């Protein structure tokens, strides 16, 4: 009986993401809000990190309306993103994602931005959509659901990431554009 209940819940969770218009989920707005508020960004961070250490925390929230997360590094705000919730009806919710803008007026980490010290891999938006979809479907975040990952704009990201992974050098968000490896020895 327990298994039947589990199966029914799993099927319901899978079906909730099927046959919906983009960004719309067959879940009531309050439940969407609650699930997103408790969204775990661990896998997202492993997948999208760029070598500088980042932290993703809820910065603002308006119950059943919106949640804004801030991505920071060494206490410095790097970017933010917001999920805006609109109740379509009692059992359906539409989610619009907004990402903070850069000085050039374009969305941060849109796939064509240039950063000396990028915080996350570009383009960010598909990864945010996957984070939301996986949270609402109660399944693990997976990069397999992303359309593409490596683009030229990620060059600095790849270099920083290689340093962190190999332990050869660790870059910080406040480092100048060029830094000698001896000045960036891990751990910092």
């Amino acid at each position, binding site marked *: 009986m327990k298994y039947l209940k589990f199966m029914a819940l799993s099927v319901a969770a899978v079906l909730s993401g099927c046959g919906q218009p983009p960004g719309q989920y067959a879940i009531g707005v309050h439940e969407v809000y609650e699930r997103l508020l408790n969204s775990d960004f661990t896998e997202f961070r492993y997948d999208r990190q760029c070598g500088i*250490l980042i932290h993703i925390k809820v910065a603002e929230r308006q119950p059943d309306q919106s949640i804004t997360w801030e991505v920071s590094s060494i206490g410095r705000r790097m970017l933010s993103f917001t999920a805006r919730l609109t109740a379509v009806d009692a059992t359906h919710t539409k989610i619009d994602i907004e990402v903070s803008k850069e000085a050039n007026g374009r969305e941060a980490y849109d796939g064509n931005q240039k950063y000396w010290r990028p915080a996350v891999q570009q383009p960010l938006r598909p990864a945010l959509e996957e984070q939301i979809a996986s949270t609402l479907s109660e399944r693990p975040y997976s990069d397999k659901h992303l359309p593409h990952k490596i683009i030229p704009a990620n060059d600095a990201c790849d270099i920083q990431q290689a340093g*962190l*992974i*190999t*332990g050869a050098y660790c870059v910080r968000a406040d480092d100048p554009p060029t830094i000698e490896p001896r000045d960036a020895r*891990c751990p910092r």
Partner: protein
Amino acid sequence: MTRLTMTFGSLIAFGLYILFDFTWGESAVTYKQPIAAVRAKLETAQAPPLVFGSEHNKRFKLVQNDSHSVVWIVEEGGKEALRFIAHLTPVGADATEVRVDVSGPTSGAFGDVQRRLSEYRSVRHMYVIAMKERVAATLGDRMYNWAVVAPTVAFATIANLTGLSKQMDSAGEAFRHSDREAIRKAYANEAARQGGR
């Protein structure tokens, strides 16, 4: 029709070549050089290129050189993964017969490599042919001829596509795990530093 015949003919020719190669390709070769000269030259032999997959973290080194054989091992991460042996037999005073073989450890960091070499004969054959060409190039004072090895590599690749795919998946998973561990440690260090302030 002509194109079909040519394709079919090419496949048969490739199959016959591989059959010939499997049957006689590993046989010993006699070099008109005394055994002392052969040993001295083989001490300088380098790894055959492009047959070990990623060269990252691999090391090819001479571990034995006596009157009967020269032995090299391929190390990965400091652990023996493969062993190449050139068996030397003097043929008169000024010639030496050289037969190349490959083996692997039966236990340890990479498991039973010897058993896998027996199972994946095309891969084992590829290693022998590649090393045999390296020996021939070294003793002949010439460049390594990739064309000699290419058909064997192509056959080994085709014959082991499923296995290669699994190996790549497994290697990818291992890299992902190691990457994640490094990232996790970096965050743990940062948390420890902040906690210590």
